[in-house]
């Protein structure tokens, strides 16, 4: 009766599968970081119309978005070492996690770049002009005016992307990395209680996603300046007198 469904195993397996959680989290966090940095770069290059780089960015984005992540992973995992060996770099001791960081990081970058670009472009152009005519440098304009507003707009889509990345990391086991799913698969195969092990992994993913959702929701509420309410006060009908002492 060994292969009957035994619910208590779900809880018994949990600690063991949880031991692989750091790998899943590391994958998600590092890939998100790479995604944000490279993605912001791509968005920036596209917005500022940088010649050549803009074309590269467009091709890259449409390639990543047009192919399944599993194929990208195999391409990086099998293709990259081949290329590196070809130019004489030894890849024997490279941790497979590195290939996953590259795959998921670049994948995130492509998707995030579009989210970032849309968010940057949704900040009204007149505010750029107002910043520039006020004498802001481009850097000051982005840091003080554009980014803070774009961030608020981007948070909901960004949250969706991070949570979906978390789920996507479950493909890591296909190249032999023991993340949460890899661990569950290994346990299931060893004990023939595959379903219990996967349910265990499922519970971990549900709880993680829920936590992420709450965190982003909190962030969104916290950073949204337009939802801060204040009653509109009446205008004082004063005849203005402006003192304008000369500075120079």
């Amino acid at each position, binding site marked *: 009766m060994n292969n009957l469904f035994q619910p208590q195993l779900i809880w018994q397996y949990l600690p063991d599968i949880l031991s692989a959680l750091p790998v899943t989290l590391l994958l998600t966090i590092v890939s998100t970081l790479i995604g944000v940095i490279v993605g912001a770069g791509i968005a920036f290059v596209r917005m500022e119309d940088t010649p050549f780089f803009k074309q590269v960015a467009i091709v890259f984005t449409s390639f990543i978005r047009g192919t399944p992540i599993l194929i990208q992973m195999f391409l990086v995992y099998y293709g990259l070492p081949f290329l590196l060996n070809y130019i004489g770099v030894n890849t024997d001791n490279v941790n497979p996690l590195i290939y996953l960081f590259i795959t998921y990081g670049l994948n995130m970058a492509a998707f995030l770049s579009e989210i970032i670009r849309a968010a940057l472009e949704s900040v*009204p152009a007149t505010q750029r002009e*107002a910043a520039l*005519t006020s004498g802001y440098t481009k850097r000051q304009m982005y840091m003080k005016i554009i980014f803070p507003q774009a961030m608020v707009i981007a948070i909901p889509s960004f949250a969706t992307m991070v949570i979906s990345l978390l789920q996507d990391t479950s493909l890591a086991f296909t190249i032999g990395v023991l993340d949460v799913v890899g661990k569950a698969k290994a346990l299931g195969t060893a004990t023939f209680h595959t379903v219990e092990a996967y349910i265990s992994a499922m519970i971990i993913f549900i709880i993680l996603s829920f936590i992420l959702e709450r965190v982003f929701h909190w962030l969104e509420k916290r950073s949204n300046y337009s939802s801060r309410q*204040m009653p509109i*006060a009446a205008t004082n009908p004063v005849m203005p007198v402006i003192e304008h002492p000369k500075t120079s």
Partner: protein
Amino acid sequence: MIEVKDVHKSFNDNEVIKGVSLSLNEGEVVTILGPSGSGKTTFLRCLNFLEIADSGSITINDQKVTFGEASVDEVLQLRRKMGMVFQNYALFLNKTAKQNIMEPMILVHGYSQQQAEERAETLLQAIGLPEHGNYYPSQLSGGQKQRIGIARALAVHPTVLLFDEPTAALDPELVGEVLKVMKAVKAAGVAMIVVTHEMQFAYEVSDRVIFMADGVIVEEGSPQQIFEHPKESRTQAFLDRFTVH
């Protein structure tokens, strides 16, 4: 004090500014009138490099900048001598009214937090919004936003203020409060170049009126000359549509 010489600007093959020159004395208010598409807004935007003019030059105080040859740094220096007020206010939506006024002072012109705060409060008082410093733009009316916009531009002691149809997006009942503030700016002795369709304002407040059409200055003179005795037939035709006496 401000000397703009022979500005030309084309969009593709379409020349929209065909050699416009303009000089302005300290504290002088010049109004630019003209039909839509006459190039008046483009001309204004060329002055602070929101559009890059093809040729011509601008001199403010001692700084001369040639369009088309200016370095990033020169443009920055030039812009810091001018303020601009926009048709749609262009307030920074992530900042309160007071922060809108203070940030350029601190970030660009090196005022201390305290200096900036004092000046912002004085200006808020002057434009009749002393209680509104902590409001975000989304909580203010159009007229209030535009008055904050003027205060922001004025706060850093610019040599000249550029107004791009400052009342065009406002409900008629709110136009008055903005024009009042603009009159106060003139009274404070700040030079202004105003692109507007407010004939009453042009007549009452400006020292000089320029009538532009098809990218050139058709006629230029005192408000009395332009409104009461226009010489050019195009000016007459344009003004006939407004009943100003």
